[in-house]
């Protein structure tokens, strides 16, 4: 129910993002989804990509401050209100969402998020029989 996400520390300076993306490009790694929030001095670039373990190695070798972590990935039907329903399940259990982003992949809605309590979140997903993705599912779709 979790997928690998790269988290990359990006200084707010022109050229730093290009370096990261070019490193991935040179290795033939495909982006599936990415997000950066804006802060004054630095950002965290979060990337879901075709081969995260390899991406992690090449970025590290290129001197990029990067970590590989597990984030939840659940599938949503492509109709209005599904995200609200899903998030409410977590909220009801007192679980906070640290960050969240979503994208469409092969016609399916994917919700990526991290919570403050992975154990409880796992239980919510299982108890409510939410559809989820594993790492291998994503690379198949990509």
């Amino acid at each position, binding site marked *: 129910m979790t997928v690998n*996400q790269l988290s990359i*520390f990006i200084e707010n300076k022109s050229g730093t993002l290009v370096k990261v993306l070019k490193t991935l490009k040179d290795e033939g790694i495909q982006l599936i989804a990415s997000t950066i929030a804006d802060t004054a001095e630095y950002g965290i670039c979060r990337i879901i990509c075709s081969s995260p373990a390899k991406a992690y190695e090449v970025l590290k070798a290129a001197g990029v*401050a990067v*970590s590989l*972590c597990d984030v939840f990935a659940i599938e949503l039907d492509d109709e209005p209100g599904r995200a609200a329903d899903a998030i409410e399940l977590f909220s009801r259990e007192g679980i906070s969402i640290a960050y969240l982003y979503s994208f469409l992949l092969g016609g399916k809605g994917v919700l990526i998020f991290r919570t403050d309590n992975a154990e409880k979140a796992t239980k919510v997903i299982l108890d409510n029989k939410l559809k989820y993705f594993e790492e291998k599912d994503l690379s198949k779709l990509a």
Partner: protein
Amino acid sequence: MSSSEFYNPEFEALSRAEIENLQLERLQHTVEHCYAGSRFYHERLDSIGIKPSSITSLDDLRKIPFTTKQDLRDTYPFGIASVPLSKCVRLHSSSGTTGNPTVVLHTQRDLEQWANAVARCLYMVGCRPEDVFQNTSGYGMFTGGLGFQYGAERLGMLTVPAAAGNTLRQLKFFKDFRTTVVHAIPSYAARLYEVMCEQGIDPRRDLALKTLVIGAEPHSEDTRKRIENMLGVKAYNSFGMSEMCGPGVAFECKEQNGLHIWEDYYIVEIVNPDTLEPVPDGEVGELVLTTINREAMPLLRYRTRDLTRILPGDCPCGRQHKRLDRMKGRSDDMIILKGVNIFPIQIETILMQFKELASDYLITLETLDDNDAMTVEVELSDMFIDDYGALQRLEKEITRQLRDEILITPKVRLVPKGSLPKSEGKAVRVKDLRKQYQ
């Protein structure tokens, strides 16, 4: 100039030959006193086969080894003193918790002589008992507080120990007490003006200020001129260091051209910091001072690490006491910021305790809106956190620990690993963009 301008005419009006005679007499006495009272100096002089009686001329001073800040640390806390602690009445200590601080002890006589020196400095720039003196310097261990307090009282001025900060209250005191003389670090003088403008106070119209004493923070001639124009005052440069006592070591006279160092208190040498050989007057080198008017803790040939030069020629004010030029920098890596002495190693020691950080960092000093500021950029290590909140907490915690160590709040910036500049493989630690040493 008439001798009524002198606070201590018996010392200030001495001729060169008279100064040197007095210096030799006081040097001989000091070396005897150190040899008899200080184990440190006794052993050191014995180790090179020198007895107090070996000092028969001022040139003989050069037989004595230098004393360094490291010596003070190695003998922490009281090991260099020349009198028993029971004779001491005051202790000042440097800031910082990294390694041993330096401790300076004073007897009652030392405090009196110190107050006299500060009073002499203030009198020299026109301060008189009718004046009202407000001290915006921090009190406590920082010698600019009590040092000026006692000196100003000795001179007979009404003295306002306002201490640091609370700018609105400082301005209220200026107004209500008709303050005429202010002691401030240069960046705070600029801050005072800024707040005056915000409050609609015109210093020339609303206040009685006429003299500003600026020290503890190196500054350029341009900065002095600007401060003088802003506040409508004459600003005089003050030089001191806690190892010598504090303020009152050297001070500008009304000529504002070099700081007279009181040669009845100190013997001045300027040496090449690499060869440690003396350099001729007019040439820049490291200031080395020998105290010849102290009891508790005389220092022989103390390497101050400040770079300056002796201004050649006579001063029109009539004093034969040599003049030091503005400080030109440091021969070590010490940073002077807002009157606080900071060594990069203090910052490094704190940073290295964070496992989230890599080993490179860069300290940038710059003047922003007339205020000196420090930014510390630190590289994140690979152990990385995927969370903005955690990054901000990390920044805050680093800031807090640095402030506790260096007593100044730096701006901490996290940067990616490998992004800080390196020169020839050796990391550049300090970038000073201030225009202080011009």
